[in-house]
C-alpha cells in the first residue's frame, strides 16, 4: 500500500469515527433525553430524604485532617469589591439576610461569631471524585435563620457569593429542609484558624452530606425565596446552571 493511500485511509477512518461520535453526542445531549434522565435526580432526592431525614455525616478526629486540603473553584475572587474587603480584613463586611423573612438582618463577622456555634471534622467530597478531611467551625444556620424568621412560603435559601467564576457570579441554593440540620453551619474557621481566601473567607457554607459545589464560599447575602426560577440561569446554582444536579447528594 502506498503511503499516500495509507494516509488517505487513515484520514477517512478518523473522519468516519468523528462523525459517528458526533452522532452519538446528538443523542446523549438531546434536551428531551437529558430531561428524561434527570427524573432520576428527583427520585434520588426523595428516596434519600425519606431514608435519612436527620442523618449526620460521619465526623472524624484531628488525626484524620489532611495537611493539603484542595481549594477548588474560585481560589481568589477577581472582583474589586471583594478585594477591597480583603484589604480591610473584612472590617465592614456584613452578611445580609433578607427575602421572605420577617426581620431582615445585616450581621458583622463578630455578631456571627457570637451565635450558637459548632465545630465538625468532616469529609469534603468534590463532584470530580476526590475527598479531603478538614475541621470547620461556624455559626449554626438554623438559629441564625430563626433570628430573621422565615415566612411560611419560603422554600429555599439562595446563597449569594462575592466571586465571579467564568464570567458569572457564584451562587447556590439550599432547601429549607437542610436549614436546621445540626451540621449545616456558616463556617468562619478551618482547622482552628480563620478561614483563608482560597477556602472562602470570611464565611462559607458547610452543609455536610452534599458535594463540594453546594458549599458556597465568599458569602455576601442569604435570600429566602419561594422559587429560584427567576435567579440567573434558573437552575438553583452556578454549576446547576451548567447542567449539574441541584440535589448534589451523590
Amino acid at each position, binding site marked *: 500500500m502506498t503511503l499516500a493511500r495509507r494516509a488517505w485511509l487513515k484520514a477517512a477512518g478518523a473522519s468516519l469515527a468523528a462523525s459517528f461520535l458526533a452522532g452519538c453526542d446528538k443523542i446523549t445531549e438531546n434536551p428531551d433525553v437529558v430531561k428524561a434522565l434527570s427524573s432520576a435526580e428527583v427520585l434520588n432526592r426523595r428516596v434519600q430524604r425519606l431514608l435519612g431525614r436527620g442523618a*449526620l455525616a460521619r465526623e472524624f478526629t484531628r488525626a484524620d485532617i489532611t495537611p493539603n486540603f484542595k481549594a477548588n473553584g474560585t481560589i481568589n475572587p477577581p472582583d474589586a469589591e471583594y478585594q477591597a474587603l480583603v484589604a480591610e480584613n473584612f472590617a465592614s463586611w456584613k452578611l445580609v439576610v433578607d427575602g421572605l423573612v420577617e426581620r431582615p438582618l445585616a450581621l458583622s463577622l463578630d455578631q456571627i461569631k457570637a451565635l450558637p456555634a459548632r465545630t465538625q471534622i468532616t469529609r469534603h467530597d468534590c463532584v470530580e471524585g476526590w475527598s479531603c478531611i478538614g475541621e470547620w467551625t461556624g455559626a449554626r444556620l438554623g438559629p441564625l435563620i430563626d433570628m430573621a424568621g422565615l415566612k411560611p412560603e419560603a422554600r429555599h435559601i439562595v446563597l449569594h457569593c462575592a466571586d465571579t467564576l467564568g464570567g458569572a457570579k457564584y451562587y447556590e441554593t439550599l432547601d429549607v429542609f437542610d436549614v436546621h440540620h445540626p451540621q449545616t453551619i456558616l463556617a468562619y474557621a478551618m482547622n482552628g484558624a480563620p478561614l483563608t481566601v482560597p477556602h472562602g473567607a470570611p464565611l462559607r457554607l458547610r452543609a455536610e452530606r452534599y458535594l463540594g459545589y453546594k458549599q458556597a464560599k465568599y458569602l455576601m447575602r442569604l435570600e429566602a425565596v419561594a422559587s429560584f426560577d427567576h435567579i440567573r440561569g434558573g437552575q438553583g446554582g452556578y454549576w446547576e446552571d451548567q447542567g449539574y444536579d441541584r440535589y448534589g447528594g451523590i
Partner: protein
Amino acid sequence: MSRPQKILVRRHGAVVRVTHWINAISLFFLLLSGLQIFNAHPALYFGQQSHFGQPWFATGAYERGGQLRGVTMIGRQVFDTTGFLGASQEGHVIVSRGFPAWLTIPSHRFLALGRRWHFFFAWVFALNLTLYLATGLISGHLRRDLAPTKSQLAPGHVLHEIWAHMRLKFPKGEEARRYNVLQKGAYLGVVIVLLPVMILSGMTMSPSLDAIFPFLVDLFGGRQSARSIHFITASLVVLFFLVHMVMVVLSGTWNNIRSMITGRYAIEVEPPAAPVGDAP
C-alpha cells in the same frame, strides 16, 4: 449407524431473558458514563480521603517536544499510553483526558451529563438486578440452574472441565442441558458478588447515602477505597463481558443468541434406537 439429532430445549425463562438484556443495556451506558465521571479526576486512592501525591492508579499528560504524551501510573510503574489513556484524540487534536472520546458519554468532557446518564441507569440496573435475584430465589432458578451440584464440585470434575475448556471442548448431548461448573461459577460470582459489590461501592461514593448507611463506608474502608473498588469491579465486569463474548462465539453464536431471545436452545441427542427388523 445413527447420527445425533438436534432438538430444541427450553433454556431460559422469560424473566431471565428480559432482565439479561436490560442488564446488558444498563451496563453499556453505566460503563461509558462511568468513564466520563472517572475522567473528571483520573486518579484512584485507598482510604477515607485523597492523598493527592500517592494515587495507586492515575493517568495524565505531559508535553514533550511540542507533543502531548499520555502516561498511566499503576503502583510505581509508569507506562506511555498516548492515544488511549492520559492523552488522546478529540476532534482533530490530541488533548489531555483519562479515557478516550470513543469510550465516554458524551465524547467530549462533560461531567454533569455523564452523571445524568450514570445515575439514571444506576436505578434501572439496580432494580433490574433486584428483580432478577428475587424471582431467581422464588422460582428456584438460582438453586436449580446456577448452584453447582455436589458431583460438579468434585475436584476431579472441576479439573476435567478446566482441561476440556482449555481445549475448547464443550459439553454435548444431555450434559449440555445444564450449565457446566465453570459457567455456574462465573454466572453466580457475577450476579451475587461482583454486581452487588459494584452497586454498594457506588452508593458509598454518595455523601448523603454515607450519612444514612454509615456501615457502607466501613465495609469498603473509606470513600476513596470505595471509588477504587467501584473501578476495579467495573473492570472485572468488562473482563467477564469479553470472556462471555468469546465463549458465546466458540460454543455456537446463533444458538446462544436465540436461546437468550426466544428461550430455545438446540442440543444434540442420540436418536432412539432403530426398531429391530427393518421395514420390508
